[in-house]
């Protein structure tokens, strides 16, 4: 009776195949990470690794737990939607150890201007200032409390609104003159500017109080003969009073 024998070459091939398969299993076991494929075609452990990154911004809820006073003030102001760390920077280190690390406190002009400097691209109605005209060089917290930034109703000085005039006057011979010397302004002008406009000089004699030949003023001040100088023109038709030496 003929017995069936597997040919030698097939047996050898089978052994080779078996070795290859076992090698594949072993190599996969070593090289493919344990969690690969658990949730999809990726390493599931990576999700936990990414989630374990440290937090730098503590979040407003954390700040409010201790800083109740500031939070209270801010909650009814224009800045109510603003998180603390927008201005104070990442503060989770401060939250975990309040003494060791103090958060940043912006006291200069620059910080507010990120949002409030005028840009035509900003949405209409967003409060913006022209940095060069709005109280130049003054840090914003002098007038605005950042936790309740409503602008002061009554400006402290004329330059708060008339900044460009104030700046050119500051470099002119008229620097030492108060605005009120020439412009009589009622206190109401500060409350509601258009309802009570300040007065302006109306005639040549007003300037003559200092500049006429016989005026009782310091002798360094330039004198003119009111009768002949400038003919029928008023002084400010040729001289800009806030910068009189300019041509």
């Amino acid at each position, binding site marked *: 009776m003929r017995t069936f024998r597997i040919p030698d070459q097939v047996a050898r091939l089978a052994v080779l195949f078996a070795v290859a398969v076992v090698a594949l299993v072993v190599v996969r076991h070593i090289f493919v990470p344990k969690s690969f494929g*658990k949730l999809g075609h990726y390493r599931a452990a990576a*999700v936990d*690794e990414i*989630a374990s990154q440290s937090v730098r911004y503590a*979040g407003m809820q954390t700040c409010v737990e201790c800083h109740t006073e500031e939070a209270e003030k801010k909650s009814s102001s224009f800045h109510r939607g603003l998180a603390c760390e927008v201005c104070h920077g990442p503060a989770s280190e401060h939250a975990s150890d309040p003494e060791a690390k103090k958060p940043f406190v912006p006291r200069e002009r620059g910080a507010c201007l990120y*949002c409030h400097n005028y840009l*035509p691209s900003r949405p209409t109605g967003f409060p913006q200032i022209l940095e060069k005209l709005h109280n130049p060089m003054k840090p914003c917290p002098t007038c605005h409390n950042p936790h309740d930034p409503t602008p002061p109703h009554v400006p402290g000085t004329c330059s708060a609104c008339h900044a460009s005039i104030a700046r050119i006057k500051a470099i002119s011979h008229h620097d030492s003159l108060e605005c009120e010397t020439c412009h009589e302004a009622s206190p109401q002008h500060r409350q509601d500017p258009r309802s009570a406009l300040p007065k302006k000089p109306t005639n040549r004699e007003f300037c003559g109080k200092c500049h006429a030949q016989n005026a009782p003023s310091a002798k360094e001040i330039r004198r003119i003969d009111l009768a002949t100088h400038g003919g029928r023109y008023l002084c400010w038709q040729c001289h800009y009073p806030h910068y009189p030496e300019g041509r």
Partner: protein
Amino acid sequence: MATTCERREFLLKLLQLPCSAVLLSMCGPLPLFADEKKEGYDAGEHYYGMGIQVDKCIGCGRCAEACKAENDVLRQPYYFRTWVERYVVYGDGEVTVDSPEGGIHGFSAAESDREVLRSFFVPKLCNHCDNPPCVQVCPVGATFKSVDGVILVDKDYCIGCRYCIQACPYGARYLDPRTKTADKCTFCYHRITKGLLPACVEVCPTQARVFGELKAMSSPLRRLMRMSQLQVLKPYLNTEPKVLYSELDREVR
């Protein structure tokens, strides 16, 4: 006769053993062992998205700054996970887009005597597409969509081939030269899994960015979705972004 049959059976069994082992390993680990869950956070209960109200963005760039601080993104001006673009549409129809340093240091007023029709800011970030082209092209499975819908990069597994950077139609990815791996917005995955908001949303002063659950009915994002007309970037690519824009101008690309 009997001996040959035994041998055949033996050989068959010998073949079956490694085959089944291979099949098993391809199926992944047995579900018996895949049952460990993270405490406190169940990814299956969440599905995240972000809404961006373009008409509220003031272009302050605090989001880009906070993102870099929170995620240790390189400070050089060409590595961003999120950035702010300024669009200017001129009277003759020309559109210019600029984003100096991603808007981190603010924008300077454009000095131009040309007639400007309109101008606005658009914050950009990874769109966390539901159908992400970057995940499709990754040859090693290093970038993936997590169960809660966030597109993440496995830094240990990434080989730095940059296919995903090429594939992203929104330019949201970059190669981190320190690790030589792809990097991108994670929706601040380490924050959202702890119940915090992403850093950019936390610091947005005008709430132009709204983060939340896409599928829960009571979430700030769902409210935005109910109340406004939403658009996505490059809808024709079928990437199905989960970053939704309201009041988006048609010029935005």
